């Protein structure tokens, strides 16, 4: 293979893609912005909404408002609840007059005072976030009232309330600092890299193969004194460049989101939002070593995807046909990511590091959580390199097959 010919072919494909605005948008802009928006925007939005609902005084419907004991009323008002009398609890909630309604039966206070028990009916819409947030307020108020009643009853019996809790459970977070900071959704990072590699590389791969066939330029290119392997490698480099660029943009976006979160937003957020940021991995602080491992893994993953894209899209007669072949490839990443979410429950063994794509997703997740080992790194990287070479050999073979090249 002659490097100058490979470079000529790669350069032409790169220039051609760079002049396509759609490709630039999907390669550079969207992967850069999407992760920060998800990391910052979602917690800010959700946290803000939760906080607003918590501090806002909400109307809660009551059937039998006169039956509400003063202590329970005080507990409810302490939770920013205003009691509104309604006739029918379910109807009031269904009509969105109130997010939640309670039913306090006659004789409620007397029964409690007599040492008996009583029921508070809570009517709410299951699955409605606002309704459920206000159910939380009501439950909190009832719990406070209940503790007061229990304390009073125990006091009358000459017992201390602590008698009900002879054993105290003390939770200690045993995860590593990296695991804590990467968040429960750390699998999102390798997933985004994989998806953006696929998205970023596909326009170039299709344009360089099925697109050339459709335009009738592939035949002219193959008539030039250039070897098929040089054509394959040139187009592979161009596809890899854009796949990798999109993946790098996704990583930069992720790091940018983390930095912004730490320096600007985190100090201003309430407890709810801070908790969600932690779950999303927004406090992840990557070291240079971690970034290096992620970059090499992303490079190998991009190489594999680029080789796969070339092999598949060369079969297609047209750009559209190639897109329809490539669209299902997303599942190749989505299924491993589903596995990755439940890896703790499934208990993935070492064999997973021998399966291309799944291995690099698991390994990158390990890196993000600070749990990667040298052995797993070696198995993952070597397996991916071998799989990529096999795919490139397959693409090269297809470039010499008459029924593939002239399948128009």
């Amino acid at each position, binding site marked *: 293979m002659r490097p*100058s*010919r490979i470079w*000529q*072919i790669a350069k*032409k494909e790169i*220039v*051609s893609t760079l*002049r*396509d605005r759609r490709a630039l948008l999907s390669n550079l802009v969207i992967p850069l912005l999407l992760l920060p928006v998800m990391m910052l925007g979602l917690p800010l939005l959700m946290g803000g909404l939760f906080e607003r609902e918590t501090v806002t005084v909400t109307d809660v419907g009551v059937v039998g408002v006169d039956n509400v004991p003063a202590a329970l009323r005080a507990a409810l008002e302490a939770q920013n609840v205003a009691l509104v009398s309604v006739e029918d609890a379910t109807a009031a909630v269904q009509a969105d007059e109130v997010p939640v309604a309670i039913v306090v039966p006659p004789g409620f206070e007397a029964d409690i005072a007599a040492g008996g028990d009583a029921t508070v009916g809570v009517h709410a819409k299951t699955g409605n976030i606002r309704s459920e947030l206000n159910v939380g307020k009501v439950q909190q108020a009832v719990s406070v009232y209940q503790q007061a009643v229990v304390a009073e009853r125990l006091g009358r019996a000459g017992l201390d309330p602590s008698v009900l809790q002879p054993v105290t459970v003390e939770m200690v977070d045993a995860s590593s600092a990296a695991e804590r900071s990467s968040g429960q959704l750390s699998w999102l990072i390798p997933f985004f890299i994989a998806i953006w590699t696929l998205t970023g590389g596909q326009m170039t791969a299709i344009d360089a193969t099925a697109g*050339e066939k459709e*335009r*009738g*330029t592939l*035949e*002219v*290119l*193959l*008539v*030039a*004194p*250039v*070897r098929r392997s040089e054509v394959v490698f040139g187009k592979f480099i161009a596809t890899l460049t854009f796949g990798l660029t999109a993946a790098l943009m996704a990583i930069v976006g992720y790091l940018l989101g983390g930095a912004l979160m730490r320096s600007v937003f985190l100090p201003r957020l309430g407890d709810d939002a801070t908790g969600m940021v932690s779950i999303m991995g927004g406090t992840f602080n990557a070291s240079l070593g971690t970034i290096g491992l992620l970059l090499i893994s992303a490079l190998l993953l991009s190489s594999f995807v680029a080789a796969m894209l070339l092999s598949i899209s060369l079969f297609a007669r047209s750009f559209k046909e190639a897109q329809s072949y490539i669209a299902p490839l997303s599942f190749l990443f989505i299924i491993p990511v589903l596995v990755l979410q439940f890896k703790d429950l499934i208990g993935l063994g070492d064999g997973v590091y021998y399966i291309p794509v799944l291995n690099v997703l698991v390994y990158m997740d390990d890196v993000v959580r600070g749990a990667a080992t040298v052995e797993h790194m070696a198995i993952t990287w070597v397996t991916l390199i071998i799989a990529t070479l096999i795919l490139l050999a397959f693409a090269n073979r297809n470039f010499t097959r*008459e*029924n593939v*090249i*002239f399948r*128009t």
Partner: protein
Amino acid sequence: MISVRNLTKSFTSGGGAGGTTGAGSRAGAGSRTGAFSLRRQPGAGTAPGSVVAVDDLSFEVAAGEVYGLLGPNGAGKTTTLRILATLLEADSGSATVAGHDVRTEPEAVRAAIGVVNGGMGLYDRLTGREILHYFGALYGMTPAAVEARIEVLDQLLQLGDTLPRRAGGFSTGMKQKVVIARAVIHDPPVIFFDEATSGLDIVARRNVIDFVQAYPTEQRCVVYSTHVMSEVEELCQRACIIYQGAKMAEGTIAEIVAAGEGRNLEDAFFRMVSRKSMAAEPVPA
């Protein structure tokens, strides 16, 4: 400069790779135009389900000559040119182009040829100049050599506006100019034109014909493949009529007209085809 000896090529049904506009796949199922079957059905020694695209074809093209390959769509012209351009491999027979064997020296053959086809495919996001530099570099030319050649071709083809503009905005005529310039950027001794005037308006078609007339010298030749009889009459010193993949007649235009006993080339062609069809017609029991 070109020697073709007993060239044969078959395709499995539906998997044909011949035809300028995908005619191969149609012909693969044994297509017909009017009363004439364009592809010969397989005979003895051919795999079942396959169609013979080129059948024992032989011809020679000398330097300084414009040689016509004449035949209806699906007759095997494009398949023949693709074999000569090393894009397809013949099942049997041999061919040399500019002294190089198409089977054993494909890279040397490709360096010695240029191909202009009717598809007029160009890279929409590259300018005319960038396209010519790209192909020049693939032929091993330096940027300075490409620029010098562009100047020559600009005089010959009036490339003008096509050089700084992106190909996506080209008219059909502009596209055809750049397609021709691309094919001859490396000044090849052999150039193949395959239905090169297909879809062109009258002015663009005239430019192609003028270029073909001017191109051959003592060191160059042109193979001009078409189904348009008048173009062959105007351009070619000699021609080969291909029908069902096989040679039906060869010689100067006057010789072919005489052999077909026609008033002109088109008339002679139809008379020859009719005679051949009648000869092949099974005698009713």
